[in-house]
């Protein structure tokens, strides 16, 4: 809301208060000042000066050296670059020490080695609107030395942010009242004549009393529509409103003075009866903003006996029924419209106005008729005309406020005893409440937000200020939660991944249909498993991600475009899906995803590294879960190659794959892109499992190597399985240390591969004899030969 300080000063004496003081005062009362704009000249040190002489600057073509008379008795030398003046003109001169609106303070200086003691100013340089290029030539022959601010009205515009609970502040009078309470001053009253009220007017029919409990109309005949007087136009202009004509301007003025929206109809365009009703089926409304709106049955309109809507109650007047140049008689509306009804209409039609803004938040019931009286008075004064038959009304003014008890014990508890009851009572009194018994307070009609004890405490705390409340540092001990434990594990995991050369990404959880091609959820999605928002802002953010991979692929894609070759990213975060084709809904779980592509080491002078492959992905996982057996079991997934299930012991951790090569090409990846998405809950379990230490071996062990030729189709996992099956007690571990294939078939049949294993044997209680080791090794080899079609080399 825009507030003019000049206008505000009509209702409260602000003399001696700086803008900064007012800003602080309001800010600490919970009323935020979002902007302060000075209009007009502010500095006393900008004075009228007459140019007595202007000669060419010796060192600069575009500058002149002037001698000006600023009323100081002697001439002042000022270097000036403007071209639009002649000697004898009077112009604004900023003397040394003058602060310009730009923040620049004038000093005495030398310009191209010529002394310059001040500055001749253009309009914009002193905070006025430029009409010409160059200096502001002052008309009307003002005396030299006169402060220029005396020639132009100045004002300060405050942009005030009013919280939704304080509709009483949405006017100049409202704000003045608040300031008066804070400053312990009183407001300057505005006298308005009594109103001649006729209740239960038979020509106003109200079919929507719930949405409009009180409605009044005043007929004023014989008005002359004209431009508003200067003072009125100035008031509206000062808060950024465009003057239209005297009647409309007066209704706007009263709205911004009192907070009560008013509307003026052209009486000749309204039938003999007025009807407050909800919109008819398919009813349309042509508003005065030139747009047509389709109404719903909840929208309240004001219509006449011809049945066409004249106004959308509390929101906007109609195109037809408004005041025009031809208007001679008007009907002035002042009413109470239900906040939720107005809000619903304004929101549905996406149509807000200064009126709807105030009705939505709730107007002061006791201000409705005084506002009408104020407008009537101004209309009669300014536009002529006379009131015909007083003010007609239907309904009753709602009573929204009552008496509220202040619980002193609870107040003292909450405030930490930082305020005395006397001071608290003083605050409430200043805010317009009055005592209605012991600790019972009667709330003024402007403050419908004060309904409960806590609302009174809030007012006391707000005005008292938290600065005056002591700080206490204490709190009850509570045990750590499961979330604490999970967060600690997650952080350890993040740090491990960072140490292994991966960057943590955080991507937006809303993704596009297009990105779904990269989705790699732990379990494939069925039709109906996606969680889609009903009204996405854009196609790019329409689906809650069922997988972290699409975000990581986009991340990688963005970095590829920046020339980054090593793409190593991880993300921990929530994924969302329905399950069973949408049967169980809104499932949220947490995953860890990894994307790996490009060289396993950065390029350098020692040579270039290979591109990462699936074994690097596996290695990463082994580093994260040291000492645990990670297994990748092939399981094809649509849209990916080399799809695998990732297991650790009997825990199914997640899925791994390479992006489809065609997709890699489409996204300009030059290396294979390896992906891993895992169930974070399962990973946490593995990471937090605490095992007891194993005794260290007391006796040496022995190793035996074996190289075997096996058909290509036999996997390492199959060989492992058979070795385990041998159930050889002395075998403590084994691993494959070489794989050899020869596609040419020269050194080895191309349908076969040679795999070399190293087996370690050891007993816990003795040093093994060579014969014992040989026998154990033979047992393993025999099992392998028996179970698999292989031969030893």
């Amino acid at each position, binding site marked *: 809301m825009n507030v003019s300080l000049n206008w505000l000063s009509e209702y409260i004496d602000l003399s001696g208060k700086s803008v900064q003081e007012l800003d602080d005062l309001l800010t600490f009362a919970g009323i935020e000042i979002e902007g302060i704009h000075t209009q007009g000249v502010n500095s006393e040190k900008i004075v009228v000066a007459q140019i007595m002489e202007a000669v060419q600057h010796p060192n600069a073509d575009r500058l002149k050296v002037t001698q000006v008379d600023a009323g100081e008795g002697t001439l002042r030398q000022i270097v000036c670059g403007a071209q639009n003046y002649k000697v004898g003109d009077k112009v604004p001169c900023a003397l040394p020490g003058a602060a310009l609106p730009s923040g620049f303070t004038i000093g005495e200086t030398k310009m191209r080695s010529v002394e310059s003691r001040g500055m001749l100013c253009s309009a914009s340089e002193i905070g006025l609107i430029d009409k010409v290029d160059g200096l502001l030539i002052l008309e009307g022959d003002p005396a030299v030395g006169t402060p220029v601010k005396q020639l132009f009205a100045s004002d300060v515009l405050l942009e005030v942010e009013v919280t939704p609970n304080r509709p009483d502040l949405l006017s100049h009078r409202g704000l003045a009242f608040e300031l008066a309470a804070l400053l312990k001053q009183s407001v300057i009253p505005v006298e308005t004549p009594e109103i001649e009220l006729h209740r239960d007017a038979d020509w106003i029919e109200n079919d929507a009393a719930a949405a409009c409990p009180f409605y009044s109309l005043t007929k004023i005949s014989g008005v002359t529509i004209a431009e508003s007087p200067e003072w009125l136009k100035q008031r509206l202009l000062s808060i950024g409103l465009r003057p239209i004509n005297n009647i409309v301007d007066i209704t706007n003025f009263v709205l911004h003075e009192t907070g009560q929206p008013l509307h003026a109809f052209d009486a000749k365009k309204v039938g003999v009866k007025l009807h407050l009703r909800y919109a008819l089926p398919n009813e349309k409304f042509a508003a005065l903003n030139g747009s047509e709106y389709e109404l719903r049955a909840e929208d309240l309109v004001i219509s006449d006996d011809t049945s066409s809507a004249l106004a959308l109650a509390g929101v906007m007047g109609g195109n037809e029924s408004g005041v025009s140049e031809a208007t001679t008689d008007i009907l002035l509306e002042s009413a109470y419209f239900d906040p939720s009804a107005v809000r619903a209409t304004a929101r549905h039609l996406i149509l807000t106005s200064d009126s709807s803004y105030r009705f939505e938040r709730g107007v002061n019931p006791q201000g409705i008729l005084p506002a009408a009286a104020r407008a009537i008075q101004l209309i009669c004064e300014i536009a002529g005309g006379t009131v015909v038959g007083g003010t007609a009304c239907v309904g009753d003014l709602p009573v929204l406020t009552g008496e509220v008890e202040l619980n002193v014990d609870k107040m003292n508890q909450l405030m930490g005893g*930082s305020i005395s009851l006397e001071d608290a009572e003083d605050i409430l009194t200043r805010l317009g409440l009055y005592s209605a018994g012991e600790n019972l307070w009667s709330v003024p009609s402007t403050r419908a937000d004060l309904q409960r004890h806590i609302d009174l405490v809030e007012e006391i*705390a707000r005005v008292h200020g938290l600065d005056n409340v002591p700080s206490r540092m204490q709190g009850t001990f509570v045990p750590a939660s499961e979330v604490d434990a999970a967060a600690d594990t997650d952080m350890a995991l993040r740090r491990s991944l960072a140490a292994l050369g991966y960057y943590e990404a955080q991507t937006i959880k809303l993704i596009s249909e297009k990105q779904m091609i990269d989705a790699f959820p732990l379990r494939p999605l069925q039709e109906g498993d996606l969680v889609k*928002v009903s009204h996405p802002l854009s196609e790019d953010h329409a689906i809650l991600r069922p997988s972290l991979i699409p975000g990581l692929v986009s991340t990688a894609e963005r970095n590829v475009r*920046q020339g980054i070759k090593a793409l190593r990213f991880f993300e921990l975060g929530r994924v969302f899906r329905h399950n069973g084709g949408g049967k169980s809904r809104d499932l949220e779980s947490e995953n860890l995803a990894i994307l790996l592509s490009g060289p396993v080491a950065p390029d350098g002078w020692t040579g270039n590294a290979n591109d990462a492959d699936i074994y690097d992905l596996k290695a990463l996982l082994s580093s994260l879960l040291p000492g645990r057996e990670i297994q990748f079991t092939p399981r094809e997934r649509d849209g990916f190659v080399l799809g695998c299930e990732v297991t650790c012991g009997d825990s199914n951790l997640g899925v791994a794959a390479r992006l489809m090569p065609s997709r890699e090409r489409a996204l300009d990846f030059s290396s294979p892109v390896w992906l891993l998405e895992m169930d974070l809950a399962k990973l946490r379990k593995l990471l937090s499992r605490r095992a007891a230490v194993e005794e260290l071996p007391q006796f040496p062990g022995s190793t035996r190597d074996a190289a075997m030729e096996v058909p290509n189709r036999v996997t390492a996992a199959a060989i492992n399985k058979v070795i385990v099956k041998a159930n050889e007690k002395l075998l403590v571990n084994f691993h494959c240390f070489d794989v050899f294939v020869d596609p040419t078939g020269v050194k080895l049949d191309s349908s076969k591969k040679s795999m070399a294993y190293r087996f370690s044997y050891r007993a816990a209680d003795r040093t093994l004899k060579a014969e014992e080791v040989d026998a154990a090794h033979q047992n393993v080899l025999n099992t392998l030969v028996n179970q698999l079609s292989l031969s030893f080399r």
Partner: protein
Amino acid sequence: MKDEILRVQNEALAMIHAANDERSLDEARVVSLGKKGSLTALSMAMKDVPKEQKVEIGQLLNGARAAITASLEEKQLALQNITDRASVAGIDATLPARALHTGGLHPLTLLRERAVGILRRMGFALADGPEIEDEFHCFDALNTPADHPARNVKDTFYFDSGKLLRTHTSSVQVRMMEKTIPPLRIIAPGTAYRRDEIDSTHLSAFHQLEGLYVDRDVSLPDLKGTLEAFLRELFGAQTAVRFRPHFFPFTEPSFEIDVKLEVKGQAPRWIEVAGCGMVDPAVFEAVCQSRGDRKYDPEQVTGFAFGMGLERLAMIQWGIRDIRLLIENDVRFLRQFA
């Protein structure tokens, strides 16, 4: 014989001295101490030495052997030393490192961890809740009326089911009060969603850090003391903190908190960092109804709640001008936090 021993010793020592590699040193050893070496030959001649001279000659021989052996060892070490030095010669330590991949944590993680770390040390336990929420937990229970401006499809992401993406992490307050009895002292970092176009200062999905403390006799001094201590630890012990009255539906009284940001070369300015307030009794009433008991009877317990935007804190902390940097994951950006 005596002269002979001295001559042999001197010759051997000279030869050792002259040796300049392993081979010539070995030659010197063989010539003096080898099977056919000069000193070995003299030792053999001991048997012919008259008995009365044996002691003296023997001592001379042993002396010569010890001197030669010591000299050999010394030279051996010296030569080894030269070889060792030669083995690292020519290594240019100024060449760049053999490259390793660097990685790092996302700035939002770093910031959240710091903030959460301070609060956990102050005795708050972590909590979380669903991001797909219902209107009760996101609005109704938080004293937000059905026609509140936030509650519409223009500002909030709704689903066809009527559920919505939580617009703040405050819904976790309600969830936690439903399942835990007081005292409750929790923080809940998490994602919240608003239907805002993404630009340099807005994201449609962003992160908040929520806090709630409910117990008997929790008061404004507790709120003030706790949040001042937290913000001073986060922004620096000397940081000025101020509380401006504000309005939130679910707290009363409510405040916004500013810290005075002092950046070198800039005028100090107040920056809003958080919102807070005393839990509105209406919230406790809603929780009591939902729980079906009076554990959160507003006549018995009071509490304070606070919330802050983590992106905003990160932007303040590191002078990040465009919020989108926090979702783009550009390595050139992330690298700066590694």
